[in-house]
């Protein structure tokens, strides 16, 4: 049903949206299936298993963000009410919520809508068309809530609608688009924090250092594994196991040629200046530390060998 998109729009998705949708789904699912209390676990597993777990509910909501030129950046989202009788989203609710969000985030506007499922369906087109009067080309974000540990990719798809001529009739169909994850520094830190459940208090400098380096280490490990995959692929191509694919070779070659990243006198100068600045700060801190230690030493010395000055004079002690 979903072909590849050709609209040329680049999509950027923020992790907040992903967590929003996941939270919405978890909440609704949890309210529908109240947790089995520890007392009658045995009974309910035997008898009530069929009734307890209903099919995962479809939740709906709206995504907001900004569109600058050809880039669509999705920042946030909120829930919407779905009216099963008319197969459409509650319009007044949407407008009310939009107004509320407009007050706090005046620069965001409605970009599209989201839902849960594994694939875009025909009935979704109905909702999609209804939103077209707010945004002439809404996006449809679909999250697949089934947890599949073998899957390496995010179970999120972004669909756009395109006008295609099928059997002589122009129809709107969903086409899948690719997207990148975009994050601001603060977002990244909090996502990292929650993902790895690091201890929240600072602890000693050693734990801070360990945490910082671990983060960088894992990132470099990822980079290394990706490069290894490419390397194996190239070796296989060289051996002749895999047929030559020139476009891929061109991409790899351009990647290799981008190293070194920056190579200029000015960069070196700026880099060394920053390096020296940091060393200066370290030096200053060490001097402060030393003078504080000296001060304490002198005071302790004074207190220990106090006998002379107690008599009132300011003569040299010892």
């Amino acid at each position, binding site marked *: 049903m979903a072909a590849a998109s050709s609209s040329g729009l680049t999509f950027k998705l923020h*992790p*907040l949206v*992903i*967590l929003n949708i*996941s*939270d919405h789904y*978890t909440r609704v699912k*949890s*309210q529908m299936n109240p*947790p*089995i209390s520890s007392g009658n676990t045995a009974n309910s597993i035997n008898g009530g298993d069929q009734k307890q777990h209903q099919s995962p509910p479809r939740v709906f909501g709206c995504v907001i963000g900004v569109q600058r030129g050809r880039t669509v950046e999705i920042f946030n989202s909120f*829930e919407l*009410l779905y009216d099963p009788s008319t197969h459409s989203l509650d319009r007044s*609710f949407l407008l009310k919520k939009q107004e*509320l969000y407009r*007050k*706090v985030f005046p620069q965001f506007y409605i970009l599209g809508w989201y839902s849960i499922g594994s694939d875009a369906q025909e009935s979704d087109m109905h909702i999609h068309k209804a939103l077209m009067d707010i945004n002439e080309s809404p996006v449809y974000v679909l999250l697949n809530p089934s*947890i599949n*540990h073998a*899957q390496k990719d*995010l179970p999120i798809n972004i669909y756009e609608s395109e006008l295609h001529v099928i059997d002589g009739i122009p129809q709107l169909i969903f086409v899948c688009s690719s997207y990148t*994850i975009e*994050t*601001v*520094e*603060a*977002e*990244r*830190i*909090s*996502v990292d*924090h*929650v993902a790895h*459940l*690091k201890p*929240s208090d*600072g602890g000693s400098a050693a734990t*801070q*250092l360990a945490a*910082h380096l671990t983060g*960088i280490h*894992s*990132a470099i490990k*990822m980079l290394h594994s990706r490069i290894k995959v490419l390397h194996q692929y190239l070796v296989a191509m060289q051996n002749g196991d895999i047929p030559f694919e020139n476009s891929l070779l061109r991409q790899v070659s351009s990647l290799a040629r981008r*190293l*070194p*990243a920056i190579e200029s006198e000015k960069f*070196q100068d700026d*880099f*060394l200046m920053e*390096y020296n600045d*940091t060393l200066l*700060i*370290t030096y*200053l*801190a060490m001097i*402060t530390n030393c003078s504080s230690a000296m*001060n304490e030493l002198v005071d302790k010395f004074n207190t220990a060998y106090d006998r002379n*000055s107690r008599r*009132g004079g300011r003569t040299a002690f010892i």
Partner: protein
Amino acid sequence: MDSAIAQKTWELENNILTVENQDPSSDSIFYYDDVAQAKFQHERPWANDPNYFKRVKISALALLKMVVHARSGGTIEVMGLMQGKTDGDAIIVMDAFALPVEGTETRVNAQADAYEYMVDYSQTNKQAGRLENVVGWYHSHPGYGCWLSGIDVSTQMLNQQFQEPFLAVVIDPTRTVSAGKVEIGAFRTYPDGYKPPDDPISEYQTIPLNKIEDFGVHCKQYYALDITYFKSSLDSHLLDLLWNKYWVNTLSSSPLLGNGDYVAGQISDLAEKLEQAENQFAHSRIGPLVGPSRKKEEESQLAKITRDSAKITVEQVHGLMSQVIKDTLFNSVRQSNRSRTEQSDPEPMVEA
């Protein structure tokens, strides 16, 4: 398996509760039991014990929303409300939303302006399936740490009289970005005149000079709660997969460049504090007979300055480490091209 032992030790030290995760399909914490909540509301066990609530559990979503909102305010304080429920001696924060008020610490009842917004938002939320009530408020202190100012303390005391159970959370987005970890604090105030039974040892943090008086006057009137975080099974799964995409951002972040202004501000603040300490030293030389008590204060001031400078330095050095690593990774290719013989690590210092 050393790593398994290390993980067990870490989990033990940090009291990682895996109780909720034993049955990952239940995600029971997300279930809102309004009967139990109403009963708890009726009983009001916190009325007798000012120290009743000891822990806070914040959901991943609430944390992300609060930090992003705080950061989006830049250097202006922002505020918002948190929704959730209570669970014994813990307050659980499930979600947060922003309020359209611009904070200027002098507005005591900023919430009065936002009541209409709050009512509207809560109504629409209940319709959309979020059944929790408001359990607290959060605001940001961009750049000057997580604590309650005088105005905050009076606002929170008012809240704790009329809107129990209520929690105050403070976030510092600037320090979060600079230190690379989330700076957040959760507080509850003591009622007027109540003296806490023992002096809790709070984590030390740097306070800029112009705020230090405000901090000192009120710091005994509230206590901090332990914060833990939780996430649903789907959240965990998504976050794991998310890592596959944003490891690039981790590597490419440059805290040194982004925080230049903030660090410069910190250093100049430190310089002022140092001058103050120096003046105090100059006065104290006149009377060595004054007694040990006054000397202790000055010592502790210099010791504090030393600690602050150490903290700033550590953050800077971390930032520099990232830069050097990136330089080694991506820029050292030319060295290996030019000189095949010497395979030593490139040293930027010796470069020029």
